[in-house]
């Protein structure tokens, strides 16, 4: 297929920026303002329209893919998407090449994240936050807590369990529980075995909710008492709705991922987007965001900045995981197009309850 | 429901002290009525006088506020509509549009679980000569045919009493006359009791054995049609049942057999036997077809009342007869009908004429002096217009 061409940049005159992101993914004060963003606006004069528009990588892609294919504006000048989805965008030519000269702070990018195989040298993307997928539960209902994915299948939780619609997290956790090294060289057999587990739990009604970031609403309403979750989210809803939930990486391990900034092909405000990225790569800013969202920051120096705010923060394993924590987290290996199609279809058919 | 065969012949109907109040309106004040079995009874009256309400009470579609209803001697006042041995031919026919003709006719029989409903229904259709259309839907029939189906649908049940609510109201004149004949024939054939409601006086007179004239919820006069026509008791009846020339005055003298009334200077003699009142202020009258016109002053005679001279105001030819409007000073306008037999004088507008009639053709009303109106007030149209406005108001209110 012909790749679309990038739109011309109008940032010089157009001081605005649309940023699409996931829920509970930026610092937010009680009145619903985003302090770091406000500071950015004051500092640069760029008016940012921050939209919580991503619930799930696939559904977001589904919504914008047609415009992307035509090289049109998708209503966002930068979006934060997960590695594997970013890989697809880059492959299809749906992203604009970043001008590193506009992002001097890229120097603060954690060395481990500089050369992912889907974007050598970070020509097209830049990490926003990373995190774990693990398990979480309602502390009021389960003071004793859960330790493994297996615990989600307990009869006490029947109908009150949620899993993520993000295949790599949900399947990753189950495969880990099955003893599979998800980063390693697994194949259909391993995947099928995990699918069987999930199918059984869904069909039996053990798992009722399969959602994207919307799983937070189910936790809040009480429809879900325990779930496969993303690490930082729990801190955020605890802050919002009372300290009711807890997160843990299961015994058998959790997944580790990164969400990355990218500039969609039809955006006319690439420079503004780069200015924003540069801003969030200030260690102090990164620390402030991290303090709120509790996700792993890719910014070197943020730890020190965080320690300055609150020493305890620097020890938070969700933000600054140590080796031991990291050893429990695994990266889901990348999939070929055919694998993607096949595994996604299998997974989706569970979501559809076939 | 229990299988009940209804009377093969009609039954008496008795209404005793019936009153019917609607919220804010008393439709029937105090009604007593007896209709003998097997008769063809017509209830005649202007629009809104309570005819339909009476029928609905008998059918059980409405409950009386007071009074009792007896059919064949049995009190049915609290019996529900579907349990009364009564059937109605509705003004609009009310044929079920979703059923074929034969299904319509068989409906009542099936509800009562009468054996061979279709056979009986076909028989009833044969009676009204529509058996060949048994499979059609009502919408596919002409108005007259629908009317006959409605009749068949009622008759097939052999009800003790058949109610007909202006069943001919929707038909045009020609068809109406034709249906009147058929209805009468069928009644004679099946011998049921017919209670026929109409506001067409000619219809009531040509069809019924007995006519009751109803006005404002009460019965004004009742009797055989010719009797009522010949000797109306009230001005209302005199003008509702055909037209009349009425004259009010004081009784100025009387003999054994007659009274003489001084009306606007003329002396009008009426036989005592034909006058409801014999003294004081009275109203006497004569039918227009009984009046003769004379181009010369007639010789005074004790056998005739004479008025005149007057002047012909209008002559209108209507085929069979010619109508003359004669203005007689002191007596207002007199209406005279002359059949176009080809004999008799034929006068033009403006001619000077005298009007006379035989004493034995006059009648005296039971009313006192009445505000003599030549034509009955145009009740029907006024009420139609009012009705329209009401509909409109309801509509507007409803949105």
């Amino acid at each position: 297929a012909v790749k679309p061409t990038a739109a011309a940049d109008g940032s010089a005159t157009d001081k605005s920026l649309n940023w699409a992101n996931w829920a509970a993914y930026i610092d937010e004060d009680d009145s619903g303002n985003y302090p770091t963003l406000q500071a950015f606006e004051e500092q640069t004069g760029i008016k940012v329209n921050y939209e919580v528009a991503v619930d799930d990588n696939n559904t977001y892609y589904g919504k914008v893919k047609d415009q992307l294919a035509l090289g049109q504006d998708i209503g966002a000048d930068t979006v934060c998407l997960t590695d594997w989805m970013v890989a697809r965008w880059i492959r299809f030519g749906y992203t604009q090449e970043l001008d590193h000269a506009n992002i001097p702070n890229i120097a603060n990018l954690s060395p481990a994240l500089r050369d992912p195989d889907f974007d050598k040298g970070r020509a097209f993307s830049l990490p926003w936050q990373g995190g774990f997928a693990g398990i979480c539960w309602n502390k009021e209902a389960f003071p004793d807590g859960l330790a493994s994915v297996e615990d989600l299948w307990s009869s006490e939780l029947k109908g009150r369990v949620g899993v993520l619609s993000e295949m790599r997290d949900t399947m990753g956790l189950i495969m880990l529980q099955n003893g599979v090294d998800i980063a390693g060289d697994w194949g259909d057999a391993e995947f099928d075995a995990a699918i069987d587990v999930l199918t059984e739990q869904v069909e039996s009604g053990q798992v009722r909710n399969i959602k994207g970031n919307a799983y937070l609403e189910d936790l809040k309403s009480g429809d879900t008492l325990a779930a496969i979750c993303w690490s930082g989210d729990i801190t955020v809803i605890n802050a919002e709705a009372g300290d009711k939930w807890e997160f843990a990486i299961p015994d058998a391990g959790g997944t580790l991922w990164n969400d990355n900034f990218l500039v969609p092909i039809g955006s006319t405000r690439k420079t503004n987007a780069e200015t924003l990225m540069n801003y969030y790569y200030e260690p102090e800013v990164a620390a402030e965001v991290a303090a709120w969202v509790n996700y792993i920051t890719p910014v070197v120096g943020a730890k020190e900045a965080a320690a300055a705010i609150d020493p305890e923060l620097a020890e938070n394993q969700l933000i600054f995981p140590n080796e031991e924590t990291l050893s429990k987290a695994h990266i889901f290996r990348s999939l070929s197009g055919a694998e993607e199609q096949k595994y996604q279809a299998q997974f989706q058919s569970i979501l559809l309850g076939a | 429901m229990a299988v009940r065969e209804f009377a093969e012949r009609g039954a008496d109907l008795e209404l005793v002290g019936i009153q019917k109040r609607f919220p804010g309106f008393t439709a029937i004040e105090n009604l007593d009525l007896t209709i003998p079995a097997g008769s063809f009874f017509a209830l005649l009256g202007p629009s809104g006088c309570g005819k339909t309400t009476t029928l609905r009470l008998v059918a059980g579609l409405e409950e009386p506020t007071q009074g009792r209803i007896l059919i064949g001697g049995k009190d049915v006042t609290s019996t529900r509509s579907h349990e009364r041995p009564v059937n109605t031919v509705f003004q609009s026919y009310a044929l079920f549009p979703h059923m074929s003709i034969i299904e319509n006719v068989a409906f009542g029989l099936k509800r009562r679980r009468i054996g061979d409903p279709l056979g009986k229904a076909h028989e009833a259709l044969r009676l009204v000569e529509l058996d060949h259309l048994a499979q059609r839907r009502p919408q596919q029939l002409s108005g007259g045919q629908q009317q006959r189906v409605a009749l068949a649908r009622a008759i097939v049940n052999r009800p003790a009493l058949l109610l007909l609510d202006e069943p001919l109201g929707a038909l045009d004149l020609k068809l109406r006359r034709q249906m009147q004949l058929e209805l009468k024939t069928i009644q004679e054939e099946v011998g049921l009791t017919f209670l026929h409601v109409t506001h067409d006086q000619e219809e009531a007179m040509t069809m019924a054995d007995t006519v009751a004239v109803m006005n404002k919820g009460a019965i004004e006069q009742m009797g055989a049609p010719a009797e009522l026509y010949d000797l109306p008791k009230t001005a209302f009846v005199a003008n509702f049942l055909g037209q009349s020339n009425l004259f009010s005055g004081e009784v100025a003298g009387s003999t054994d057999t007659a009274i003489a009334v001084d009306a606007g200077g003329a002396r009008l003699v009426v036989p005592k036997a034909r006058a409801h009142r014999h003294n004081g202020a009275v109203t006497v009258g004569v039918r227009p077809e009984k009046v003769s016109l004379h181009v010369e002053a007639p010789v005074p005679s004790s056998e005739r009342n004479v008025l005149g001279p007057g002047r012909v105001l209008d002559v209108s030819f209507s085929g069979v007869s010619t109508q003359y409007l004669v203005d007689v000073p002191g007596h207002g306008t007199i209406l005279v009908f002359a059949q176009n037999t080809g004999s008799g004088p034929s006068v033009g507008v403006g001619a000077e004429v005298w009007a006379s009639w035989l004493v034995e053709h006059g009648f005296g009303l039971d009313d006192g002096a009445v505000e003599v109106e030549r034509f009955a007030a145009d009740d029907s149209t006024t009420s139609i217009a009012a009705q329209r406005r009401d509909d409109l108001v309801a509509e507007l209110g409803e949105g």
Partner: protein
Amino acid sequence: MAFAAFATAEAQPQAPRKSSRIALFLLLPGILYLVLFFLTPLVSLLLTSLQAPLEYGDIGQYQYAFNWQNYVDVMTAYWPHILRSFGYALAATVFALLFSYPLAYFIGVKARRWPLLQSLMLVLVIAPFFISFLLRTLAWKQILSDESFVITSLKALSLLGPDAHFTGTPFAVIFGLTYNFIPFMTLPLYTALERLDLRYLEAGSDLYANPFTVFRKITVPLSMPGIVAGTLLTFIPAAGDYVNASRDFLGGPDTQMMGNVIEANFLVLLNYPAAAALSIILMAAILVLVGVYVKRSGTEDLL
């Protein structure tokens, strides 16, 4: 043609006119519009449904082919959803009918005496339209969530089992469909019942039918056009709905309907041929069902 029966006014005899040039002028823009934006997409949908994956292509890349197999594939993969869709839609239609008939009867027949009340009630029936149907559905989801007052009370009263729940169950989806389409059922029923000539009912009772028989033999058949219109207006959109059954609303993984499958194939799996084939199947099935239904209920003139 179709649905004309909902018209509130009686038709006047129309003098048929000749001048077909004027007719053409009147028809052309609208018809062209429909051809362009309804018919053409439908045809390309048909073509898409026959596409095959692009050889060596990436995810979501297809080429024109004549791949009937797509139909077989989606039928095999999704037959439960097809059945479920029609099952839920049918159930919702029946419930909506049962719910709406007495309501429409009251508004259309009993309330005739109070026109203002009648129109007020009609306004209330369409009131849900004024609030986005997504919000209505979410409101139910929250009102009936596991920890909600309603559900916890029912559990406390032991009317519900301890691990019973509402959201995510087939019951919830059918409930949502029913609720959302009640106005679509009530209004045509109302229209039919409002016109119901009560003299037919009186004639029935005069002909020895008890109230129940009158209802069964006269009221129901005479309101048939309303019933047919209402059931169609409920069934068609309900069968194609995907909001109620969506996992974000009242549904769960085992309540997904055709709409959800089509959406997932279009937007998540990027399997356009499958989505298109499913769309065509859904539409064809509905047309066949509607045709049979309308024929059997004897209301062809609705179409």
